C-alpha cells in the first residue's frame, strides 16, 4: 500500500493539471485497497485470492455543470486524460443553476480504525485457521464452507478550494456455514481488529446449531412470534434506511413521506446514525468531504430527523449532515452507520419468555414488495427453530415471509443489547436481537 503522502501527491498533481484546463473547480478522490480472501467448502480451501488496486476519481465543475471521470492509471498523461474526460462529460449537459460550488476546508474528528495486526495477516495465517475449522467439521461429521478475509482500505480526497480529508481502516471477516446432512447453520463476524472474533468459536457455534437443525419438521405458514438474532434484524431493517434520505422524501419514494414526526414504530425503537460509535467503521466524512454528524433518526418510535447532503440541505434550509454520496448522483444521501438503542433482554430471556414461537438465525434473498408499507419478502435460512414453553424443541423447515417493516417495528416485545452484526443483504450495523409478535410467514419450502 502507498502512504498518505503518495495519495496527497496524486491529488495535488490532479489539482495542478486541472488549473490549465477549463475547469472552474476540481475535486479528487483517491481510493486504495489491498485485500485477500480465503474461501473454503467441502472442508477444504477451494478459492484463495488477493487484490491490490488504486483509483483516482476526478470531478470537475465548469459553468454550472459537473461530471466525474475515474481511472486507475496515475501517470500524468492518464490523469490529464481523466480531467479532460470529466470536462467533456460536463460540457455535454445543460447548465444546472442549483449546482453548488465545492466546499471549503473542513475540520474532522479523528477516528482510529487501522489495526496493524489485521493488515499483517498472511495467506498462511488464514489457511491455518481455516484448516482448524475444517478439522472441527470433519470431527463432527459435518461439512464446512465459508470465508476468511483481511485487508485495508485508504481513502483521501481534496479539492481546489483547499479541502483535504483522509482515512484508513483495516477489516477482517470470518463467515462459516456448517452442514449436517440436509441441515445447515451459520455464523459470521467482522471488525477492524482481527482479535475481536475467534473463527474457532464461530465455527463451534455454527456446528452446534447445524446439529440442532437436523430433522426439521414442517409447520404451516402463519403469523408467529419470532426471535430474530441480530443478523436477521440487520438484513431486514437495512432496507428501511435509504428512506431516511432527504432526497428520497423529495422524490416521494420514501416510506416516510407524510409520516415524519408521527408515532410510526413502537416506543422501544430509537435509532441513530453514528459513524463515531466504537463498533462502527467508515470514514468521518462524506462524498463531498463534509464531516459526518451523529443524527437521531428515530426517537422512541417517532421518525425525527433525516440526513442531508449539501444540495438537499440547501433546498430544505437545513445544515448538511455529512451523509452525501459522491456527486453527481441522483440518490443524494443515506445513513450508513446505524446504531439501535437496544435493550437488556438476552436471547435466552427471549426464548424463556416465549410460549410458542420461532427462533430465526438468518434471512435470505430479501426484496421489497411494497415500497410505502415497506413489505419485504425473503426466506429464513441456516437454522430455524421452534420454541415451545420457553425452550427450543425442534428444527423447522424454512419459511417465506411477507412482512411490513413498519408493522414489525411496532410489534417488538423485547430487545437485546445492540451489537455489531453482519449479514449478507445489508451493510453492517449495531443492532439488537428482537422478539417480535405476529411476524407473517406466507409459504414453506422443501427443506
Amino acid at each position, binding site marked *: 500500500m502507498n502512504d498518505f503522502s503518495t495519495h496527497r501527491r496524486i491529488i495535488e498533481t490532479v489539482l495542478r493539471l486541472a488549473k490549465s484546463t477549463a475547469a472552474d473547480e476540481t475535486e479528487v478522490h483517491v481510493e486504495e485497497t489491498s485485500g*485477500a480472501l480465503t*474461501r473454503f*467448502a*467441502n472442508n477444504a*480451501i*477451494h*478459492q*484463495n*485470492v*488477493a*487484490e*491490490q*488496486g*488504486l483509483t483516482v*476519481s476526478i470531478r470537475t465543475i465548469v459553468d454550472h455543470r*459537473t*461530471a*466525474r*471521470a*475515474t*481511472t*486507475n492509471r496515475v501517470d500524468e498523461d492518464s490523469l490529464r486524460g481523466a480531467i479532460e474526460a470529466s470536462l*467533456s*462529460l460536463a460540457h455535454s*449537459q*445543460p447548465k*444546472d443553476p442549483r449546482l453548488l460550488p465545492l466546499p471549503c476546508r473542513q475540520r474532522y474528528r479523528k477516528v482510529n480504525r487501522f489495526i496493524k495486526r489485521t493488515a499483517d495477516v498472511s*495467506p498462511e495465517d488464514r*489457511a491455518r485457521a481455516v484448516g482448524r475449522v475444517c478439522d472441527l467439521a470433519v470431527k463432527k461429521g459435518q*461439512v464446512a*464452507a*465459508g470465508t476468511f478475509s483481511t485487508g485495508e482500505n485508504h481513502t483521501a480526497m481534496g479539492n481546489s478550494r483547499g479541502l483535504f480529508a483522509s482515512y484508513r481502516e483495516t477489516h477482517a471477516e470470518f*463467515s*462459516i*456455514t456448517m*452442514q449436517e446432512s440436509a441441515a445447515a447453520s451459520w455464523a459470521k463476524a467482522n471488525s477492524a481488529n482481527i482479535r475481536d472474533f475467534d473463527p474457532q468459536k464461530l465455527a463451534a457455534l455454527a456446528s452446534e446449531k447445524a446439529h440442532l437443525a437436523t430433522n426439521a419438521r414442517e409447520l404451516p405458514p402463519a403469523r408467529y412470534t419470532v426471535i430474530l438474532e441480530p443478523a436477521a434484524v440487520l438484513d431486514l431493517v437495512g432496507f428501511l434506511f435509504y428512506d431516511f434520505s432527504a432526497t428520497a422524501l423529495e*422524490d*416521494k*419514494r420514501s416510506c416516510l413521506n407524510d409520516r415524519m414526526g408521527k408515532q410510526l414504530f413502537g416506543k422501544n425503537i430509537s435509532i441513530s446514525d453514528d459513524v463515531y460509535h466504537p463498533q462502527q467503521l467508515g470514514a468521518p466524512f462524506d462524498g463531498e468531504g463534509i464531516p459526518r454528524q451523529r443524527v437521531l433518526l428515530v426517537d422512541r418510535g417517532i421518525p425525527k430527523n433525516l440526513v442531508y447532503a449539501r444540495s438537499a440541505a440547501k433546498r430544505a434550509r437545513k445544515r448538511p449532515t455529512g451523509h452525501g454520496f459522491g456527486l453527481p*448522483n*441522483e440518490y443524494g444521501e443515506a445513513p450508513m452507520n446505524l446504531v439501535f438503542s437496544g435493550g437488556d433482554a438476552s436471547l435466552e430471556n427471549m426464548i424463556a419468555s416465549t410460549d410458542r414461537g420461532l427462533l430465526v438465525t438468518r434471512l*435470505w*434473498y*430479501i426484496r*421489497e*414488495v*411494497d*415500497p*410505502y408499507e415497506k*413489505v419485504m*419478502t*425473503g*426466506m429464513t*435460512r441456516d437454522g430455524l427453530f421452534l420454541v415451545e414453553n420457553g425452550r427450543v424443541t425442534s428444527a423447522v423447515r424454512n419459511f417465506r415471509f*411477507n412482512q411490513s417493516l413498519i408493522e414489525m417495528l411496532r410489534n417488538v416485545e423485547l430487545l437485546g443489547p445492540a451489537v455489531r452484526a453482519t449479514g449478507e443483504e445489508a451493510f453492517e450495523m449495531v443492532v439488537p436481537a428482537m422478539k417480535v409478535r405476529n411476524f407473517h410467514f*406466507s*409459504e414453506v*419450502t*422443501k*427443506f
Partner: protein
Amino acid sequence: MWDLSTQAIDTAQLRGASYADVRVMHIRQRDLTTKNGQVGTLAQAESIGLGIRVLANGAWGFSSTDRLTREGIAACAAQAVFIAKASALAKRGDVVMAAEDAYIDSWQSPFRKDPFEIPLETQLELLLAADAAMRGVKGVTLTETGMQFRKIDSWFSSSIGSRIHQRKVISGCGIAATSFQGDEIQKRSYPNSFGGQHTLQGYELVESLELLKHAPRVAEEAAALHSAAQCPERTGTVVLGASQLGLQIHESIGHPIELDRVLGQEANFAGTSFLTLDKLNNLRYASDIVNVVADARIDHGPGLGTFAYDDEGVPAQCTDIIKEGQFRGYLSNRETAHLVGLQRSSGTMRTESWNRLPIIRMTNISLLPGTWSFDDLVADTDDAILMETNRSWSIDDRRYQFQFSTEIGWEIKGGKKRRMLKNPSYSGITTEFWNSCDAICKFDQWTLWGTPNCGKGQPMQTMGTGHGASPARFRNIRIGAAFSNQ
C-alpha cells in the same frame, strides 16, 4: 499485453506453478442518468489490470494488480503461487482439470454503432426528452432514465499456450415513471425494470427501443395503477410476459444448474441447489414443451452471456439444460466437468474484472420458442392474469421456493385481455411451476433479455447474463400471496 502475460506465467512457473492463466483486462464504462428532468449521474470510468490464477501443490491461488510494470507483475505472480501453496495447507485432494486445447484467436462482438463515439449531447438529449414525456403525465411524481455502456478488452493467456483477445461492447438503456398517491407508490418501467434492456450491442440497441414512443404510456400506466383493482389472491392460471419469464428462468433454472453450487462450493453465500447429481437425466424438470439451453455462441444472439471463449480459455458452446422437459445438463468448468462424467468443460467460467477470479456463471440460459402466437394464447385462455415487468424477486438458497411480483397485471377473461390489475404476484416450487407450463409463444415474441446485475462469489462479483424468452402460460399457480395479510 502479451508481454505482461508471458512474464506473469513464466514467473509463476519458476515459483512452482504447474498451471497458470492470466487475464489482462481494460474496462471502459459510461453512465448517464436523469431524474425529474435533471441530469443525475454523468460519469465514465476506466480500469486496467492483470489477474493471475495458478495451481501449485495441487491447490489454487489467485492474485491481481494494477501495477503493470515488470516489478508489479513479478510480485503479483509470486504472490499467486504463495497463496496457492497456502491453500494446499487445507486441501482434501489435488485439483484435476479436464483437458482443453490451446487457442490463438481474436474476436470482437458485433455492433453497428460504437456508443462511445455517439456524442454525449445526443445521448442526454434523448434521455431528457423521454424524461420530459413522462413528466407531462398527471400523477407522475418521479421520472428516471438511464443509459450504460461498456467496452471490455480482455487478453487471456495460459500455460497450455492459449492467447485469446476478445472485445465486447455492451449497451443498456431504460426509463421509469413512479407515482405516489395516498398510501401507495406505483411504478412502470420500459423496456424492463431495474435499468431496462442490456445486450451485447452498440448504440443501435438504444435506437431500437424507441424510448420517446413508449414514455407517455409508461407514465400513464404508473398513474393509472392507483385506480386499478387489486390482483386477487387465488390459485389459477398465469401468463407471464417475456421479460418476467426471463428472470424466472434466471432464478429457477439458471442458478440451480451451476455445478459449483451443486457441489457445495457456494454453500456459505449464494447457496446450494436442489439439482443434486443423481437428478441429471433422471428429473422431469418441466412439461414436455419446455426446452432450455445454455448457449454462449453468437448464433444465439447478442446476449450478456455471449462470447467466443470463456475466461478459462474454453470455446463458447450450446448445452441442453432441459430437453422436452427432462433435466439434461449443468454449467461446468474444467475443474468440475469430470464430476458429471463430462470429458470437457461446458465453457461457463466468467469474471467481472481483472481483479476477480473466474467462477461458473450463467451464459445465455434461454427458453426456446414454442408454437403459439400471443393472440391465440390469449384467445385460448378463459381466465388468467397476465403479469408483466418484474417488481420483486426472491427464491430460497436451494432454488425450490420462489415469489415474484410484477409492476402490472392484466385480467384475461373469456379469451380477451381486459382490465388492469395492481400489485400482481405469484409464487411456487420450481419443478411444479415448470411442469405446469402448457403454452409458449413463437419466435416473433421471443426476446433475449439481459440481466446485468447477477451477484455471486466472494468477494462478490456482478455479472451480466442473457435469457431468451417469449410469453408463456402456467396453470394452477398460487397468485397474490405477496400482498396477502393472512
